[in-house]
């Protein structure tokens, strides 16, 4: 990058920190910004700053929001007695897109991973217990990823909430829609057999 003027080299450097952006793409983006109007550049810079300044965590569900409580928590038409626990805010978006779920959320901001130095106190666990203790929650759906640490997190939550007598459920695991049996690994097929249901 030595042959670029310093400011543009710096911009390339910053942009290439983004996930999935290599130096080549970063260079293309940097030159796009250089060629764009001053207004466009200011708007981009302003938008980035606004994200940092205005976005915070909802005090109830810990989703990212620009108003507190967030829109989902404020929506009285949603079921108040069902909570869906997810790893991150991006999971909320995925579940919302299905239109199947009309309850509230609780965002852990990670999963239990003692090997990676993440214990229960590093996650939004205590606040989950408080929410279940404070109001009439009938069911908690644990929607952490079906990986080792997501599973352990689900077991931990089940244990944590046991004293409250609330129903704790786990998202079903098994075959993805549109797939073909012969292409799946043994673990997926065995989870599907275990999770089979009556028809």
């Amino acid at each position, binding site marked *: 990058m030595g042959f670029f003027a310093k400011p543009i080299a710096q911009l390339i450097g910053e942009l290439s920190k983004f*996930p*999935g952006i290599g130096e080549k793409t970063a260079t293309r983006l940097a030159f796009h910004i250089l060629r764009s109007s001053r207004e466009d550049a200011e708007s981009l810079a302003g938008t980035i700053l606004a994200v940092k300044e205005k976005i915070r965590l909802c005090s109830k569900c810990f989703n990212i929001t620009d108003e507190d409580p967030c829109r989902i928590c404020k929506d009285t038409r949603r079921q108040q007695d069902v909570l869906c626990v997810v790893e991150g805010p991006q999971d909320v978006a995925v579940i919302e897109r299905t239109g199947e779920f009309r309850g509230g959320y609780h965002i852990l901001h990670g999963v*239990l991973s*003692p*090997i*990676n*130095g*993440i*214990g*229960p106190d590093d996650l939004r666990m205590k606040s989950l217990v408080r929410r279940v203790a404070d109001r009439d929650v009938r069911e908690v759906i644990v929607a952490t990823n079906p*990986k*080792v*640490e997501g*599973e*352990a997190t689900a*077991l*931990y939550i089940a*244990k*944590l909430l046991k004293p409250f007598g609330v129903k704790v459920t786990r998202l079903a695991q098994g075959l993805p829609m549109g797939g073909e049996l012969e*292409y*799946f*690994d*043994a*673990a*997926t097929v065995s989870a599907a057999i275990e999770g089979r249901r009556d028809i």
Partner: protein
Amino acid sequence: MKSVITEALILRTNDYGESDRIVRFMSPGLGKVSGIAKGARKSIKRFGGCLEPFTLVSLTVQPREGLSLIKEGAAAKGYKGIKNDLERFAYGSYLLDLTNNIVADDLDDESEKVFFLLKNALALLEASDKPEEVVREYEVRLLGITGYMPSFLNCLSCGDPVDRPMDEAGQGGPVEAVFSPGDGGVFCRNCGSEKAGLESISIGTLKTLEAVSTKKVSFSRNAIEESGRIIPPFIMHHLGRRLKSLEFIDKMKGGV
């Protein structure tokens, strides 16, 4: 360097970038290795979700300086009994964490021993109703292989056996000695008397710990309890920090 196919136990994983995964694993031939599996989170075909802790895998690896390249992988064993049980998951996490932290990257000659020790410990843990015994046994044997074995039976100060009887007739032998995590071993009653704040440990437990490294022994309830008070602190002292996985075990024992 050419690609090799190796058996491996996954120690830890971290997602990296859009779809890659960085994986630390223990291989009998390559030792403790860090590798990158490009596209691992999307390619069911090349990895089939096998790059997760508590998995015995067969990996195709291209060894490189820094991060090796993990090209393909298939699971050979999934240790379901550990993954589906929170207590065993806690102890198992500690086994992996310990291996990752204690074993040197260039432990060439001993890697095979560490690999099989870990493989055996995970298999035992999966079915055991005494997970602590499995863990204590693993700790001591791993310390032995890596050359950090504490002195269990000879006083660090005077060198005498800590169970030496008091008189010529062989009567009145001591029943206890003190263990110092910082010094890495025991002191006899005489030498240990000036040292404050050390754990008293029964001679029976010390003998059990000494024997573990060479043969299969069964821990008494007291030996499990006592060795749990000295071995982890010794290891943490040696590492210079507390492992989060150990804290998690303590948390689980305290009832979540």
